[in-house]
């Protein structure tokens, strides 16, 4: 048994603590605190790409691993992927899909803010590094998303810079953007 006797503790704690336990142990309760988003994002950027994407789409992950190995790409982490001068588009698209699936899922394992950052950063990397649009979002929505992500206080500087470059590649209303299809 652990040092902390939780079963014994429930007999001595006030109703407020018991209510917090009932509430906090619900699956829909927020897993992480807002002030932890920075640490979670840094962890996400340092996480091995194939660990998360392999769990999300095993078939695609195997293909991508072969692709990465064949091209001798040092894609160990999401950070490596986004900062690579020529990242594989398919890997960026898979990352975007993984992030979107997490954004759309109320029981997502990723905080929505971090999933959104991953989503827009993958789009930004494709725009800036490959001059390619992997999103069907319109210019205004895409720019809004890129800039919203850039403003998150927990974001790191290289990602912030990448998002700014991507936003600048999108044409202002009425103009023509380099990344436009």
């Amino acid at each position, binding site marked *: 048994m652990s040092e902390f006797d939780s079963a014994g503790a*429930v*007999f001595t*704690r006030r109703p407020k603590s018991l209510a917090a336990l009932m*509430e906090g142990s619900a699956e829909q309760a927020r897993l992480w605190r807002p002030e*932890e988003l920075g640490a979670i994002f840094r*962890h996400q950027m340092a996480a091995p790409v194939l*660990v998360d994407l392999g769990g999300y789409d095993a078939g695609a992950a195997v293909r991508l691993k072969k692709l990465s190995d064949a091209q001798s790409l040092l894609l160990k982490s999401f950070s490596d992927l986004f900062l690579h001068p020529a990242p594989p588009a398919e890997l960026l698209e898979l990352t975007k899909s993984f992030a979107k699936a997490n954004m759309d899922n109320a029981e997502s394992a990723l905080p929505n803010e971090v999933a959104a950052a991953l989503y827009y950063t993958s789009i930004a990397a494709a725009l800036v590094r490959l001059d390619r649009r992997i999103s069907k979002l319109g210019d205004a929505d895409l720019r809004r998303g890129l800039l919203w992500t850039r403003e998150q206080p927990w974001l790191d500087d290289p990602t912030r810079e990448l998002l700014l470059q991507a936003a600048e590649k999108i044409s202002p209303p009425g103009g023509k953007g380099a990344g436009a299809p």
Partner: protein
Amino acid sequence: MSTDPPASSIFPRTDWAELGKAGEADEARLDRLIRAYWAPLRIFLVATFPSLKDQADLLLQDFAEDKILKKGWLQRADHNRGKFRDFLKTSLRNFVLDRLNRVEARRPPLSLDEMPREPAAAEGPSEEFDLTWLRTVLARTLREMEEDCKNPSADQPRRGQIWEMFRIRLLEPLLNDTAPPPYEELIGRFGLRSPTDASNLLLSAKRIFKAHLGRVIQDYAGQDAATAVEIQSLEEFISRLAKRE
């Protein structure tokens, strides 16, 4: 006076061999339940009938043997499964009142002023009963979850880590009203490969807790629907109490 149930069966005078096989299973289950929830029942009895404090254990034992084992009681309880707690309370209260009436009937008549007075059973005893009941349910849940997670034969990988994550991230901070360990600390402590990995560990813990809570409640509440209603009822009850603090 102890709040613990008797160490042996609370039905010591029962001839189990005389009971049918199905009956035996039912009575054994009730024996287990009453023993598990002895403390809330005793609190309710003493709070409702303070003058019977010294006889509480004996009365509870009589209640368990004479009332619960009485033919038809279990069927009525099953019929009221969603309200098993209320059914127990009402049964116990009626049982004690019946005992008091019988004692009273054997005595010579008293004047009104001489009659012993019991305070009316109000919200107090009932709330105290429900709170102790909830504490008992949570304690059983946590004990069973910990044992389950630490069972080396369990086939789910990282089961031990799941309990540790639940304990240090949720249980201790919530029960001790302290800040949980920061996310960075968890990465090293559990060898987390990514935020998804971290969340999955915590989500698994919550699911295992929920499954055990459901199992503990289903033990007395019965079918899934009644269990769900009971969980909701306990959540609402504790939330109401917490708001009053």
